[in-house]
């Protein structure tokens, strides 16, 4: 029986695997199929943080460990049962499992809330776990920094940023529409971003301010 299937306790986290150049998922998959517990731990070390990251972003912190664990159970069982037909696509398979888990959790949440409260109320509050006061403050601060950046640039440069970030026009559309070269466009964007970074560092290095990462 696999280590993941028998215990809900997370495997002691090894340092994330370093980044050698060539992928050898096939070898890892075959070692897991042979029952090497070390291979299982390697799988966990490579994927756990990334899986946690996506689950947290999409579903919030509730039952996060359990959800990460569930993803691993699905992946390892698929490997052990020989259901993973293309081992070299392991990374893609893990992504698919995470996506399905997210979709399933959302469906469950919709269903549960429907059975507990009125329909309209449930849908309005379904995905609002990020809407806590602390995050709102951080978002406000970020917008304030961006506003400072915008106030320091010309109206034309501002229009370029507006077209890109708000109107979602492509770089080609913007350059053609405003008579810009590719380099001018990139330069403006990178300057604005650098300025944002500088102001942000100053603000967030102030005592008592600690930006939350999802």
């Amino acid at each position, binding site marked *: 029986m696999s280590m993941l299937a028998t215990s809900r306790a997370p495997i002691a986290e*090894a340092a*994330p*695997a*370093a*980044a*050698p*150049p*060539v*992928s*050898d998922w096939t*070898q*890892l998959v075959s070692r897991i199929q042979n029952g090497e517990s*070390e291979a299982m*731990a*390697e*799988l966990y*070390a*490579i*994927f756990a*943080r*990334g*899986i946690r*990251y*996506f689950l947290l972003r999409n579903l919030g912190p509730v039952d996060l460990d359990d959800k990460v664990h569930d993803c691993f159970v699905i992946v390892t069982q698929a490997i052990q049962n020989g259901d993973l037909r293309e081992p070299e696509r392991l*990374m*893609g398979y*893990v*992504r698919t499992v*995470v996506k399905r888990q997210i*979709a399933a959790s959302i*469906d*469950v949440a*919709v*269903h549960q809330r*429907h*059975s507990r409260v009125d*329909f309209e109320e449930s*849908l309005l509050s379904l995905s609002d776990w990020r809407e806590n006061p602390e995050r709102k403050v951080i*978002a406000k601060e*970020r*917008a*304030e920094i*961006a*506003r400072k*950046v*915008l106030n320091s640039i010309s109206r034309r440069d*501002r229009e370029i*940023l*507006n077209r890109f*970030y*708000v109107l*979602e026009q*492509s770089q080609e559309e913007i350059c053609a529409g405003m008579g810009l070269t590719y380099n001018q466009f990139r330069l403006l964007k990178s300057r604005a*971003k650098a300025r*944002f*970074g500088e102001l*942000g560092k100053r603000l967030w290095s102030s005592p008592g301010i600690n*930006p939350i*990462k*999802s």
Partner: protein
Amino acid sequence: MLKKVSVDTHFHGTQDQLELYALDLLADSEFIRVEEHLIVCATCRRRFDEIESYVDGMREALVTDAGAGEETGWDLLSWLRRPVVSMTLGLVVLLTAMALLNRGPAKLAPSAAMQIPAAGSGTPVAPPTRELDVTISDALRDSGPFRVEVLNPAGRTIWNGLAAADAKGVEVKVQQRMTPGDYFLRLYSVSGEKLKDYAFRIGG
């Protein structure tokens, strides 16, 4: 000591790719590649967090400033409220719009309507738009409300919302810019039960 497994982390998305990923504008093939990489690369996750923070802040600042500008602009331009001025301007705008329309169709229409299933046997097709009014005329036992999801060719949900049925069928207003390609529309009951899947195409 764990043996290190080699991971294909050669593909660190560029700043542009991560930015487009944050804006949800990355092409589907690249989107999947970036996302798979983010699962295994902590460095890129940190880079993405920073980029996303910037994109969100910039968007919010641009949008709210545009709103504030409109409010103050109204007072500064109060002379526009004079009937003669506003009617003349209105006429000029109308004539300009007519002239522009005569020059050819706009690149991306603001909205279009589409019926599912299509009148013939083929896949329903609509032009690329910023907003799509879909009427699902299939006979459904339930009168709704329904939960609706629109998925792009990679199976990624790009829009979701609610819809109700009337005499014509289920009316859905998809407020999502859609570029040419094959899409799917998924209909759920409010309890989360999947009712039907439909395919449609946004034509070039």
